[in-house]
């Protein structure tokens, strides 16, 4: 009786929390393993039928859908929370009050490599000080999402920045350097508010919005809000322990997401997910593309349309 989960490191804290509680409830009769091999790595195993559930910080992509299809793996797509990618700076930074997507792009686009190294090159109003860059590891869903949202193309980024899979490393870096700027998931910012400052992002409507639960729910923290998911192997769902686990997760995800500093979805999103399971509504609503800047509202609308 083992439920095997693998995939995104972003979703890991939620799944882990659920797994912990679930195993306690089941008094050890069911074992749950939660691995971290990233969204892509998770799908790779998932589509070979090696895992029951895959954590994903982005929707499944066309290539992965094809893999799953080839192996005869069918799946349910269940959103579990929202994450706000947070752009952080050192709290002692005197000049940055907000930043636009264009400015971020100037800093992070591949063409900036080795050239854009001082703040005044981005915005002449800013001082002539070096830019110190920190970002998610190049093989994480976070990196993929940020580059797509800011630079317009997934994985298109300059390379000369401190990259780490371990977001604490980034927290440490930004908090110890006054000229630093970096990005990572909201949870790490939330836990380290004392050491960091979240930079408000000017959204497409022209408002500068700082990341927060409310802003994500209101759909104003754009384009850096993103949904995160679990994908459940349809065949595995035939196993009672997997089914039980997924049901338990849908009932408790909101509570745990909040606990580990993600933005929980409205209750109907979770019941909707359960409904998909019960009605056998398999597949994805994203058509194999990663989409940027989707709001909770839009997500729910699509899910119900499945």
């Amino acid at each position, binding site marked *: 009786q083992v439920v095997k989960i693998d995939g995104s490191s972003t979703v890991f804290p939620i799944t882990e929390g659920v797994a912990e509680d679930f195993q306690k409830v089941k008094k050890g009769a069911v074992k749950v393993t939660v691995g971290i091999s990233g969204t892509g790595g998770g799908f790779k195993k998932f589509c070979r039928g090696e895992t029951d559930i895959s954590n994903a910080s982005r929707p499944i992509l066309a290539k992965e859908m094809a893999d799953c299809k080839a192996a005869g793996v069918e799946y349910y797509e269940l959103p579990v929370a929202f994450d706000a990618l947070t752009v952080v700076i050192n709290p002692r930074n005197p000049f940055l009050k907000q930043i636009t997507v264009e400015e971020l792009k100037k800093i992070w686009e591949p063409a900036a490599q080795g050239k854009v190294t001082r703040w005044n090159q981005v915005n002449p109003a800013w001082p002539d000080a070096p830019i110190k860059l920190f970002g998610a590891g190049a*093989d994480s869903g976070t990196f993929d999402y940020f580059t797509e949202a800011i630079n317009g193309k997934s994985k298109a980024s300059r390379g000369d920045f401190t990259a780490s899979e371990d977001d604490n490393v980034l927290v440490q870096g930004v908090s110890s350097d006054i000229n630093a700027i970096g990005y990572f998931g909201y949870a790490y910012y939330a836990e380290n508010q004392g050491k960091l400052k979240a930079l408000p992002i000017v959204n497409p409507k022209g408002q500068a919005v700082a990341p927060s639960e409310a802003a994500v729910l209101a759909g104003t923290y754009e384009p850096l809000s993103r949904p995160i998911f679990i994908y459940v192997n349809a065949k595995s769902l035939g196993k009672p322990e997997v089914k039980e686990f997924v049901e338990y997760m849908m009932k408790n995800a909101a509570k745990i997401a909040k606990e580990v500093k993600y933005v929980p979805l409205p209750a109907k999103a979770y019941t909707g997910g359960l409904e998909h399971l019960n009605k056998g509504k398999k597949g994805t609503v994203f058509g194999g593309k990663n989409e940027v800047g989707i709001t909770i509202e839009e997500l729910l609308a699509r899910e119900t349309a499945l």
Partner: protein
Amino acid sequence: MAIAPPDALPSTATHSPRGEARLAEFAELKKARQRRERLIEAVLFLAASVSVLTTVGIVYILVRESISFFSHVSIWDFLTDKQWTPLFDDAHFGIFVLMSGTITSSLVALAVAIPLGTVIAIYLSEFAGHKTRETLKPLLELLSGVPTIIYGFFALLVVTPLLQKIFPELPGFNVLSAGLVMGVMIIPYVASLSEDAMRAVPMSLREGAYAMGSTRFQTAVNVVVPAAFSGIASAYILGISRAVGETMILAVAAGMQPTLSFNPMEPAATITSFIVQVALGDLPHGSIGYQTIFAAGLSLMLLTLCFNLLGYWLRKKYREAY
């Protein structure tokens, strides 16, 4: 009393009938024992060859994945490109970027470990009293027993902030701090092995030097160190291999920033830290990203192989001659 030539010795047929019979008997016994001994030897040989199989395995795995890697990336680009962004949209595979990090961090570490380790070895072997040595050496050896991941956090959370007090410009991740801590970690390897080599120099040689009126320092430098040279060289080589191969300290404290630079005041990615970084992430088996870690591993393996061969050659050349 007779003086006899050798052929006058009491003659015994080389193969007397009794001798023949016993010989046949012996041959049987010998065969039986040899069968048993051969079997044991074969088993032992198999055990010894496991280490060769390990190497074969390593080379096979690294080369296999690297071959598919190099079918995508030309070796020329691999060796000359000045960027390392294998997982990016615009991928570059300039291994020298990682090499520069590896070399810089190793140099910093060795700049700490080799002088300190050597001085410690000389001190322990030639200056310290028996008691001092027997307490300090094991204590020092404990340094190499601390898991490196713990050193990594020590570098990041304790040493870097201290260094920033001296160099306010120093970024939170830098090769300097990681390298220094790595150097301290390597000290015992250098010190302990060098000291062993120096201890092994026979007392008679030292007495010879002292009897000429040498001071301890003169004895150490003129007699003990040259006599122990090959052992000390092996200690250095081991230290170098350690530095080049060290992973977690750099992964945690050096910042994983792949830029072509030899400045220890900057963050850098090394071959090893790149490999763990990728291993921590979501690289699907079989992708080009997955293969890069093997190509990087192969480069690392070749690098350490060079040092090890150098060490082997040094040992051969300067075998202890006392």
